[in-house]
C-alpha cells in the first residue's frame, strides 16, 4: 500500500467527503449522530498516517512518482512527492486532524453539520491534491476545489457578516484563480505541455533565447498574483480579515493553517521550479516587507480578536516571503521553518479565540476582560501562542525568525532585517494588548459565570502548544524536518530528472 500512498492521501479525504452525507443519514436513522464526527476524525487521522508513511523514503532523498492510470509523465498525470511537497502535506494533514477533533465540540451548536464536514473534507482533498500533484492543470483543478469549498465554509453560518465576507472572498478569489487559468493557458500555448517537470525543462530552454518572449514574465506575474491572493500579499490581502473574522473559528484555523500554506507552496513550486525565480527575489523581499508592515500596523488598532489575528497572519506571511526572497539556502530554510511554525501557532491562537467565542459568545476585545481567572488553561495556551508568534526565545517563532534574520544579514540586506526585527517587537505589542484586554484587567459583570473550555477543545490546543515549546527548545529538530524541503526547492534538476525518468 505504501507504493500507492500519494494517491491514497488525496482519495481518502475525497471519499470521506462523498461518504459523509450517507454516514450522516444512516447515523441519524440509528440515533447516533456522533458517528459522523468520529468518521470524519478517523478519515483525517488515516490521511495523516498515509502521509507520514511516505516520509522515510522522501527523507532519504527519493522523489516518489506515481503515474495515474499507468500513463508515463509528459502525457499522463503524475503525482510527484519530494521534500517540499511532503513538508506541506504533513502540515496540512496534522492541522486537519486537529481541527476535526476540535470541531466535534466547537461546531455542535450549528445545524447542517454534515455539509460542514463534507466541505471540510473537500478542502482537505483540494489542499492535498495541490500539494502532491505534478501536473499544472491538475494543480489548478484542486486549487479550485479547495477555494470553492473554503468560500462555502466561510459563509457557512449564513449570518450577515459571514455572507458578506463570503462574497468578497469569493469574487476576489475567483478573479485570482482565473488569472492562474490564463497563465496555464498561455503556458500550454507557448510550450505545449502541462507536466511541471517537463514545463520546467522547456521553459528553461525558451529563457535561454534572446530576446526573452514577452509572454514569460506575464505568465510568472499571473501565477504570482493568483497564488498571492490566497496567501494575502499586501495589495491583494483585503479579503482575509473579513473572512477570518466572520468564519467560525475552526474554519479560520483551517484557512490560516492549510490554505495559506498551500498558497505558499504553490507559489514556491511554480516560481522556483518553472521560472527559476531567483531573479525576482528582490520583488519578494519588497512585497514581504510591505506585507509585514501593513499587516502589523493594521493589527495594532483592531477591536476584534479574530480580526487582529487575521492581520497578524498577513504580517507573518511577510516573514515567509522575506525568507524565501533572500534566495539563499538559509533564507529558504528559515522561510519554510517559519511556514511550519506559522501553521502551528496560528492554528493554536485561532483555536484559543474559538474557545473564548464558544464560552463567551463574542470576540470583541472591548467586551472581554479578566478571563484569566475563569479560563486559566486557555489563557496559558494563548500566551504561549502569542509569545511564539512574537519570536520570544524559548518558543518556536524565535528559532525561525532568527534564521531569517541571520539569512538577511548574510545576504547583505541589513535594512530589511532591521525592519523585520522592529515588526517582531510590534507583534509582541499588539499581542500584549490582546492578552491585556482578554485575560487581565477588570472583569465585566456578565463574565462571572464563564467556565473553562471543554476538554475535546483543549486537547488539540495542548498538542499544538507542546509543539511550540518543543520546536523552540530543540530547533534542530525543526531544521531537520525542513532541510529536505529546502533541498528540494534548490534541487530543480533532480526533480526534473526523477519525474521524467519515471517514464
Amino acid at each position, binding site marked *: 500500500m505504501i507504493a*500507492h500512498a500519494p*494517491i491514497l492521501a488525496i482519495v481518502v479525504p*475525497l*471519499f470521506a467527503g*462523498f461518504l459523509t452525507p450517507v454516514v450522516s443519514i444512516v447515523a441519524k436513522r440509528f440515533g447516533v449522530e456522533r458517528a459522523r464526527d468520529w468518521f470524519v476524525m478517523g478519515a483525517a487521522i488515516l490521511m495523516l498516517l498515509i502521509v507520514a508513511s511516505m516520509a522515510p523514503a522522501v527523507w532519504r532523498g527519493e522523489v516518489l512518482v506515481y*503515474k*495515474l*492510470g499507468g500513463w508515463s509523465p509528459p502525457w499522463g498525470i503524475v503525482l510527484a512527492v519530494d521534500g517540499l511537497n511532503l513538508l506541506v502535506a504533513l502540515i496540512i494533514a496534522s492541522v486537519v486532524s486537529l481541527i476535526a477533533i476540535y470541531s466535534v465540540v466547537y461546531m455542535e451548536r450549528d*445545524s447542517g453539520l454534515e455539509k460542514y464536514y463534507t466541505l471540510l473534507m473537500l478542502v482537505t482533498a483540494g489542499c492535498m491534491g495541490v500539494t502532491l500533484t505534478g501536473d499544472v492543470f491538475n494543480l489548478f483543478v484542486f486549487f479550485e476545489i479547495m477555494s470553492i469549498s473554503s468560500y462555502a465554509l466561510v459563509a457557512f453560518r449564513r449570518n450577515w457578516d459571514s455572507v458578506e465576507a463570503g462574497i468578497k472572498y469569493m469574487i476576489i478569489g475567483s478573479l485570482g484563480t482565473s488569472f492562474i487559468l490564463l497563465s496555464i493557458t498561455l503556458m500550454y500555448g507557448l510550450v505545449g505541455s502541462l507536466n511541471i517537470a517537463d514545463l520546467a525543462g522547456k521553459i528553461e530552454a525558451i529563457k535561454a533565447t534572446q530576446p526573452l518572449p514577452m509572454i514569460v514574465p506575464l505568465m510568472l506575474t499571473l501565477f504570482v498574483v493568483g497564488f498571492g491572493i490566497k496567501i494575502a500579499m499586501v495589495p491583494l490581502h483585503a479579503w482575509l480579515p473579513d473572512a477570518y473574522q466572520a468564519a467560525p473559528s475552526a474554519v479560520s484555523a483551517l484557512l490560516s493553517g492549510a490554505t495559506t500554506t498551500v498558497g505558499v507552496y504553490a507559489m514556491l513550486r511554480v516560481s522556483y521550479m518553472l521560472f527559476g525565480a531567483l531573479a525576482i527575489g528582490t520583488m519578494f523581499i519588497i512585497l514581504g516587507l510591505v506585507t509585514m508592515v501593513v499587516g502589523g500596523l493594521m493589527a495594532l488598532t483592531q477591536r476584534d480578536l479574530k480580526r487582529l489575528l487575521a492581520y497578524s497572519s498577513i504580517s507573518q506571511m511577510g516573514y515567509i516571503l522575506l525568507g524565501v526572497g533572500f534566495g539563499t539556502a538559509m533564507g529558504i530554510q528559515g522561510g519554510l521553518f517559519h511556514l511550519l511554525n506559522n501553521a502551528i501557532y496560528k492554528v493554536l491562537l485561532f483555536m484559543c479565540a474559538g474557545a473564548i467565542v464558544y464560552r463567551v459568545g463574542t470576540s470583541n476585545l472591548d467586551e472581554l476582560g479578566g478571563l484569566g481567572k475563569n479560563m486559566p488553561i486557555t489563557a496559558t495556551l494563548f500566551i504561549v501562542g502569542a509569545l511564539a508568534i512574537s519570536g520570544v526565545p524559548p518558543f518556536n517563532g524565535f528559532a525561525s525568525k532568527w534564521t531569517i534574520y541571520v539569512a538577511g544579514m548574510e545576504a547583505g540586506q541589513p535594512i530589511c532585517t532591521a525592519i523585520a526585527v522592529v515588526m517582531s517587537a510590534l507583534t509582541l505589542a499588539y499581542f500584549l494588548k490582546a492578552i491585556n484586554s482578554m485575560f487581565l484587567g477588570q472583569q465585566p459583570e456578565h463574565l462571572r459565570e464563564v467556565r473553562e473550555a471543554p476538554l475535546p477543545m483543549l486537547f488539540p490546543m495542548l498538542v499544538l502548544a507542546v509543539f511550540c515549546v518543543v520546536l523552540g527548545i530543540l530547533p534542530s529538530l525543526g531544521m531537520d524536518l525542513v532541510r529536505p524541503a529546502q533541498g528540494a526547492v534548490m534541487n530543480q534538476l533532480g526533480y526534473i530528472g526523477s519525474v521524467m525518468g519515471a517514464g
Partner: protein
Amino acid sequence: MAGMTVIVRTIGRLLFPFLFLFGAYIIVHGQLTPGGGFQGGVVLASAVILLLLAYGMEGAQAKVNALQAELADALGGMILVWMGLMGIIVGIAFFQNVLPFGSLGQVLSAGNLPVFNLGVGIKVAASILMVFYAMLRIQGGKEE
C-alpha cells in the same frame, strides 16, 4: 413556486421522457460520440428542471426529492472513486483500466470509460438538481 399554464405543463409532461432518454443516450455513448458524463448529466437534470418549472416544486419533488438527489450525488462520487480504487486493487495504478476493452464502436467497450461516464452523469445530474432545489429553498424563504 406555483407552476405554469396547461400548455407548458402538457408539453413538459410529454417532453420529459424523451429528454431523459436523450440524457441517458449521451451518457451511455460517451466513449463513442461527442458528449459524455457531464453533458448527459446536465440533460438529465434539465429534464427534471423542466418538470420543476412546469409543475412547481411539488411536481419535481414527486419524481426526485432532495434526499434522493443527495444520495445519488454521493453514489455518483463513490462510483468514480471506486473505479479508481479498482485500479489499485486489480491492476497496478489508480485509474488503471480493469475492464475488458471490447470491440471498437460497441456501446460496451473502452474498458472503464462507460462506468466512469455513468458515475459522472449521476453525480452531475444530482448536483445540478441539488443546486436548483437549494436556490429555490432560499428564494422561497422557507429555510430555517
